């Protein structure tokens, strides 16, 4: 199941684990990324708290945590090569995996159609 937030994150939900990244729209708006900072594995994050930082040549931007949970894995590949986020934001450019505190919290997030309407 794919969900979205108004802060331009996407979540792919499987068995209570959410793979989180930024949307194609967000990646395009940010422009070429040159730096990514990810949370530590094991970090307990809260909804709307700061989860990661991305920087383009122009500016730094925060990536917020879409739901409460614990970080189980991070994508070191985008730290080593931030351009992956631009080239494949909703695939190889994922940021981190979050074990959701309450899996049903995801139900309240936007579905793809609602997100597309938001950015239209």
């Amino acid at each position, binding site marked *: 199941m794919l969900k979205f937030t108004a802060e331009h994150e996407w979540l792919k939900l499987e068995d209570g684990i959410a793979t989180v990244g930024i949307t194609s729209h967000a990646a395009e708006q940010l*422009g070429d990324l*040159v730096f990514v900072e990810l949370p530590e594995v094991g970090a307990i994050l809260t909804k709307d708290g700061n989860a990661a930082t991305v*920087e383009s040549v*122009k500016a730094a931007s925060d990536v917020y945590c879409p739901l409460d949970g614990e970080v189980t894995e991070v994508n070191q590949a985008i730290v080593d090569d931030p351009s992956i986020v631009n080239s494949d934001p909703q695939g190889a450019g994922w940021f981190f995996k979050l074990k959701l505190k309450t899996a049903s919290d995801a139900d309240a997030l936007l579905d793809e159609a609602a997100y597309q309407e938001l950015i239209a």
Partner: protein
Amino acid sequence: MDDQTVLKTTPLHALHLSLGARMVPFAGYDMPVQYPAGVLKEHLHTRTAAGLFDVSHMGQVVIRAKSGAYEDAALALETLVPVDILGLKPGRQRYGFFTDDNGGILDDLMITNRGDHLFVVVNASCKDADLAHLQAHLTNCDVELLEDRALIALQGPRAEGALAALWPDVTSMKFMDVRDASLHDVDCIVSRSGYSGEDGFEISVPADQAEQIAKALLEDLHCQPIGLGARDSLRLEAGLCLYGNDIDTTTSPIEAALEWAIQKPRRAGGVRAGGFPGADRILNELANGATRRRVGLKPEGKAPVRAHAELYADAEGRTELGEVTSGTFGPSVEGPVAMGYVPTRFAEPGCQIFAEVRGKYLSLTVSALPFITPTYKR
């Protein structure tokens, strides 16, 4: 009414839109921050080929003495800038700055001897204030802001070739030369200068012909349009100051490490020593040094350290030194680059200091500027 309606536009505005630029407000103008290629590619393209920049938002000003004599205009402007303008040869250009009574910098500018008058280019954000300043103080001169001209910068190793297709004589120009040129029968003023650290040109064009000239230059396959985003990263790698960030009324020219722009005739013991606003402080700092200096800063690691990051002598944030005034990722350096002010005893290249970024203290090395090797045609 949205913000767009109050922004001014340059004569190349329609061209930017047709090229797919992302537009942003800058100094009251709707300007291209990047084109579809993006900031990274635009930056690197300028260093390896040629980039075309719209800098028409900048102020182009003619200063003409009522007497008609260049010398009178030069001496008048020397009362506002600590630069040798009388000694500037016809067809030559020099960097300078307006100083205030406290020795701070009101704006930086390029100054050209055009034979019987001066032609100066000032920053967009300061041009109204500069014009008022000039008109108030240069009472023996006519000062005119040229509203009917665009300014196109063409920068990079392929810039000469792109311009030569329109005007073959360009090859005989040297860095900081300024000439009249007929580009496809359009009367232009071409200077061999710019703000990228690369060889290149700034071309003053009549507004109604600007799009035609820009399109003709872009016909060169090596020439691509470049936005303000890459202009900023290019100038920062080249160690060049952005007015409002790296220099302003709180920074003196010596603090800003711009003393190279103050020629001998205006220094203590020179034939026209002093005689500009803030001369006491500036001449004193030339003789005895300033307490702080603008320096290059090379952050360790990959994280950019941005403007206003606080600088410390230690990794615990105990002894504050100053702050970063410009910082980004340098695409040609392939790493973060920054400039900022530190006490003079920390201004030696190799000195290790720290910057606070998101609650962490990152290590930076004070570095010589520029970060790249300029390719000016001297």
